[in-house]
């Protein structure tokens, strides 16, 4: 097993991106705490939200629109496309780059011709994806915590957001495992990125469309984003079923990635 050396190598290759993505999420979540309207401003905000068409209100989060609470706003910070994009970029970049990217660029030959088990390569990529997601999601939570230190908001404390950050991690870890499987089947990093990004974006769009278009509501369980609802987490806590589904998809993606990569031509 050469997982340690492979992880150090992945860290050297991706550390700049990881620090940037983590800083971006930290800043964004901090900024959200700054723009939460004060109690005196909620009337104006409600009028603005009422003007918005229904599909936009769905995108923002119906709970937020209904309650206009600080908790709702902070929850919105975790369904906003920006932090989702940051987490998605990491999951796709490292999954696709770790296997298909190395094969496509020719550097896989240098690794795979040495006494390195193929399972070690998949394991290293999986650990790198997970570690980066912990850092980016954790940085987001730290941004919220810092913001709440600087501006106290009624009815919400930083620890309340930890389960949300945890589920954001689990969502993208699951997506990363699927991306790792896709990467294990491809010969080119660019193609792997396209496939993984397409699947992730497709999953997001499917969840959104299934919420605003009742005719396809039955398809919503097929989207990973169906199992990630920060506002519901803040209201009711983490649903065990959501954790189970995301964990199962992640485990299946990993098993398929290990099995596929062990048998393929490089």
């Amino acid at each position, binding site marked *: 097993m050469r997982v340690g*050396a492979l992880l150090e190598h992945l860290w*050297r290759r991706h550390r700049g991106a990881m620090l940037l993505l983590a800083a971006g999420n930290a800043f964004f979540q901090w900024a959200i705490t700054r723009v939460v309207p004060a109690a005196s401003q909620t009337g104006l905000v409600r009028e603005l939200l009422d003007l918005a068409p229904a599909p936009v209100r769905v995108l923002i989060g119906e709970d937020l629109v209904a309650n206009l609470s600080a908790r709702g706003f902070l929850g919105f910070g975790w369904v906003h496309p920006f932090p989702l994009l940051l987490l998605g970029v990491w999951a796709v970049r490292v999954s696709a780059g770790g296997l298909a990217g190395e094969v496509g660029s020719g550097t896989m030959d240098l690794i795979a011709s*040495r006494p390195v088990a193929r399972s070690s390569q998949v394991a290293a990529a999986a650990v790198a994806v997970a570690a980066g997601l912990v850092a980016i999601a954790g940085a987001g939570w730290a941004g919220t915590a810092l913001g709440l230190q600087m501006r106290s908001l009624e009815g919400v404390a930083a620890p309340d957001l930890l389960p949300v950050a945890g589920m954001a991690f689990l969502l993208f870890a699951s997506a990363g495992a699927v991306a790792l499987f896709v990467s294990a089947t491809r010969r080119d990093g660019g193609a792997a990125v396209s496939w993984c990004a397409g699947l992730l974006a497709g999953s997001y769009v499917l969840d959104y469309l299934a919420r605003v278009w009742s005719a396809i509501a039955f398809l919503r369980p097929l989207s990973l984003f169906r199992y990630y609802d920060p506002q519901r987490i803040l209201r009711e806590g983490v649903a065990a079923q959501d954790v189970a589904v995301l964990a199962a998809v992640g485990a299946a993606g990993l098993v398929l990635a290990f099995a596929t990569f062990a048998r393929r031509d490089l």
Partner: protein
Amino acid sequence: MPPEPAALATDGLTKRFGAVRALEDLSLRVEQGEVFGFLGPNGAGKTTTIRLLLGLLAPSGGRATILGEAVTLGGAAWRSAVGYLPGDVAFWPQISGQRTLDFLASLSRREPVERAALLDRLGLDALTLRRAVRTYSDGMRQKLGIVQALQCRPRLVLLDEPTKGLDPLVQQAFYEVVADLRRRGTTVFVSSHVLSEAQRLCDRVAMLRAGRLVFAGDVADLRRAERRRVTAAFAADVDPQTLAHFGAPVASTPREIVLLVAQEELPALVARLGMLPLADLVVEAPSLEEAFLERYR
């Protein structure tokens, strides 16, 4: 005492990519300590063979062993005794040459005991190694590729087109490195289409054509098996047709004829020439280049 296992051996090794037959029924044995040339034009299957030997590709048929152990797709321990230079060697552009060598040595599980000497011989200095690989020229990348393949003192080295991109001085240094490997008993399996290189470096060669083995043997045997180039000059005009049946005419004038003649025809030809007004006679063994071209014609 059991016989020493072959450095590498294949038995009916075959690889197909869909309908394309990249390698067909290759049976080959390379003994430990040999410098073995693997020749063929582009697309003959040389790189596919090397990738099969390293377990980067799964064979469609047949089997291969390296240092007595069966080649599999996994990270088997025998790989720590093998050094490999890919044909189109690629590195991580943003990582320095030094880090690249450290990383690859750590994966090999052997100390890079030869690194310093190799860097010195190939002319890669410490300043260059500190730079990101993206700033390297093709030749510098190739040198780095050679160093990474040999730095941990492997028992078997697989080199795919090793002198590609190297200037003549560095090529010379590389040939000396291979000569040292031979002296130390390292097995070198070198794929090339530069025939003079194989002639200079190798004890034995194998030739591939369209995925099939067309020759395997000593370089000297290969040259011996090929036709000789006979140039006969005459003091008076001679009808070239009188000699045509001894071999294939390459060029002829009434006073000079050039023929490619099989070795067994030479005594009869010389006897016949003795009856003609012979002024000069040159019999040349073919270069490996000519032998190679003749095989592929």
